């Protein structure tokens, strides 16, 4: 009789499930309060930066016809090409396939990516190999002797 009321020897089903529920909730709470900050910590923070709209790309006089030059455009490379005709063109320098940096091939007279043999014509269009999209084209102008490349407005 008395032992039936002793909670240590025979807890009632209702009390046991309440305790289990409390234990489960407590475990989930503790685990969640550990896992959440860790997961958030692992995701790198966004570093706000002013979008790059135009950059100086070096003197125009040193860029010979049928050559190209890589310049930083914000955090990414850009490529400036002087065509055999003398015209300047500029594109994003990151291959649209798997993010390698492209280069100008004077022998082919177009833009090439060495990593997986991707080819782009002088309008930035992907013409051969694995690249799925064209290179973004930028405006290339000359101010004094300085090449200025800028995003197409």
């Amino acid at each position, binding site marked *: 009789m008395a032992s039936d009321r002793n909670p240590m020897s025979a807890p009632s089903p209702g009390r046991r499930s309440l305790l289990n529920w409390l234990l489960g909730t407590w475990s989930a709470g503790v685990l969640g309060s550990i896992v959440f900050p860790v997961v958030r910590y692992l995701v790198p923070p966004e570093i706000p930066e002013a979008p790059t709209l135009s950059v100086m790309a070096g003197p125009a006089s040193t860029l010979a016809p049928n050559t190209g030059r890589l310049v930083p455009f914000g955090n990414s490379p850009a490529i400036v090409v002087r065509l055999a005709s003398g015209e300047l063109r500029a594109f994003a320098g990151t291959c649209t396939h798997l993010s390698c940096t492209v280069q100008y091939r004077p022998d082919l007279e177009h833009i090439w990516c060495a990593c997986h043999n991707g080819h782009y014509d002088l309008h930035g269009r992907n013409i051969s190999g*694995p690249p799925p999209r064209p290179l973004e084209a930028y405006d290339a102008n000359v101010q004094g002797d300085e090449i200025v490349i800028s995003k197409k407005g």
Partner: protein
Amino acid sequence: MKAWLADRLPVAEVEAAIAHKTVPQHRHSIWYYLGGMTLFFFGVQVVTGILLLLYYRPSAAEAYDSVQFIMTRVPFGWLIRSIHSWAANLLVAAAFIHLFSVLFLKAYRRPREITWITGVLLLFVILAFGFTGYLLPWNELAFFATRVGTDIAGAVPFVGEATVRFLRGGPEVTGATLTRFYGVHVAVLPAIATVLVGLHLLLVQYHGMSVPPSVESEARRAGRPIPAMPFVPHFALRDLFGWTVALAMLAGLSAFLPWELGVRADPFAPAPAGIQPEWYFLWTFQALKLVPATVLGVSGELIALVGMTAGALALVFLPMLDRNTDRSRAIVTWAAIGALGFMVAMTLLALVGGHS
């Protein structure tokens, strides 16, 4: 002294287990040495890796110079670093051979499924070690290999871009990627590998060596037991001999073909012509080159990624896929030959094809 220990540790049990451990002897016994060989190279990596840690500096500004310092100024630094690079390659090779020998001899069948699964996971860990470690000297090849390797994750639908950011520690491969890869290479992967290697070795001791089905049935037909060799000292001494040869090979390779450091990474230089990943990723590289940009409106990278993931899952769950009949074993053998043939063919294509 021994009595003192025996009161506190299961000395007698361990002694008995060692005395009873035997290795079956038959025409395929040579493959039993591959696991031990893989373990040996792993041990070399632990020791040389810890030594490199003492001088290496994980930042974009200092990493290249610190490796150069190890190779040119630290006494025997060139040796330690070369052995670490060479042993990494031989470790991958030994693990691949170990995996395929276990696969062809069907050693993954009941009750060794978990041994197989931990082994496949260890192979993935070894490849992850290779991929993260490759970036640490911060040279040009490593820089582009990491750009390409992490960019592949971008092909995953919906979460691709977030995954790339997570892997790189930002949108681009920078010093943040280097510190991230460093932490994974020297802390996260070693912790995972320790658990997996421990479990793998424990299970090998628990189940003993597997005997191939063909040898088993021949012995049953002939009514003869399969001869066995005591592990200590007979097999252990043979293991030791193999490890000594491997160590001599490592020393020779490192002395006569020291591992190059290459050119310092420059985020604004073009990818160099003829750029290629390490040999064990060459087949993936060639496949990525050959897959067209889009197939029926689906991106080629996604197709390659789905194919690789399916292959990896099939490898992990192979013991569950093989129903352990003569027919299913034959299917596994031919599928493995096909996969091996594909990898070899792609690697050869990459080696001769270069870039056209």
